[in-house]
């Protein structure tokens, strides 16, 4: 595509210009656009991650490969592509709960979860995930027993983390395709359980 001409700026600049003009005319707000993007990413972006988790729940050999080398294991399913970041998958157990944050900015396992939710970029989330994860999780509606250890994983440009939730017991009889629907974005960040 030849979009380097004088008359056509790069897409990100044009998108920013258009949004600014529409806002100035009162035709939409930033929040309107955010809401669509967020809804879209919540429903569709994390689907890749949900497929990874459903496969791991269904196939012990895949689970082992996923925990050994997350980047290679998601590539088996066609995810990751040109993105060269290292993906580390951290498994929840009955005694360990994992929580992902990026304290510096908003690094996120993009290839499997889409764009990060707004709260993930929020300074309060980023600091409290480290300082008081148990209280933070309670506010997300996840109350963990005292004996459950919380491990907090700080993402970076080099390493991204994905939580492998435990498969809920009632889902034992479901096949992989059916399991996908039960894996939520929040469970893969670690602020919820499926």
């Amino acid at each position, binding site marked *: *595509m030849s*979009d*380097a001409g004088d*008359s056509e*700026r*790069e*897409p*990100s*600049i*044009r*998108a*920013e*210009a*258009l*949004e*600014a*003009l*529409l806002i100035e*005319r009162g*035709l*939409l707000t930033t929040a*309107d*656009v*955010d*809401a*669509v*993007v967020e*809804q*879209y*990413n919540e*429903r*569709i*972006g994390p*689907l*890749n991650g949900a*497929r990874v988790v459903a496969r791991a729940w269904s196939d012990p050999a895949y689970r082992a490969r996923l925990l050994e080398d997350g980047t290679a294991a998601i590539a088996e*399913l*066609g*995810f990751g*592509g*040109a*993105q060269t970041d290292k993906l580390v998958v951290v498994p929840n157990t009955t005694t360990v709960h994992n929580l992902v944050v990026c304290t510096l*900015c*908003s*690094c*996120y396992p*993009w*290839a499997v979860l*889409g*764009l990060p939710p707004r709260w993930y970029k929020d300074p309060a989330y980023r600091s409290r995930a480290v300082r008081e994860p148990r209280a933070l999780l309670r506010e997300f509606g996840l109350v963990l027993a005292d004996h459950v250890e919380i491990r907090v994983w700080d993402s970076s*440009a080099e390493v991204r983390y994905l939580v492998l939730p435990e498969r809920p017991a009632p889902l034992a009889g479901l096949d992989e395709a059916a399991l996908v629907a039960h894996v939520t974005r929040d469970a893969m960040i670690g602020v919820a359980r499926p």
Partner: protein
Amino acid sequence: MNEALDGVLAPPLENGEAVFEAPWQGRVFGMAQALAAAGVFSWDDFRARLIVELAGRAPDGDGAFEYYAHFQRALERTLRELDVIPGGLLAARAAVLAARAADHDHAGHAHPHSHPHDHDHDHDHDHA
């Protein structure tokens, strides 16, 4: 999803394709949905132009970047043809923003294909 885009009009969602390869793709998608929801244009107004734009796409270049490049043109065209945002106005604002970007440390990053992926450190506008 508020508005349907089926068949050949569908965004690249399947086959493990990432949804938005860059933040601007989410913004143009969100703007189109929000404007239609607000009644600035009807979804059919937009859809008709998207069909025209997508009809011109290269047969082997249908990744998310290509899709949203067409999507963006269709949105700009809809707003231009319905006299919501004249094309000259958009070009002028984009020129202002591009000049600002050149003043920052992003000079030399003016190639749309050089960063099609995740900008983790997209701090250029966030810290007003």
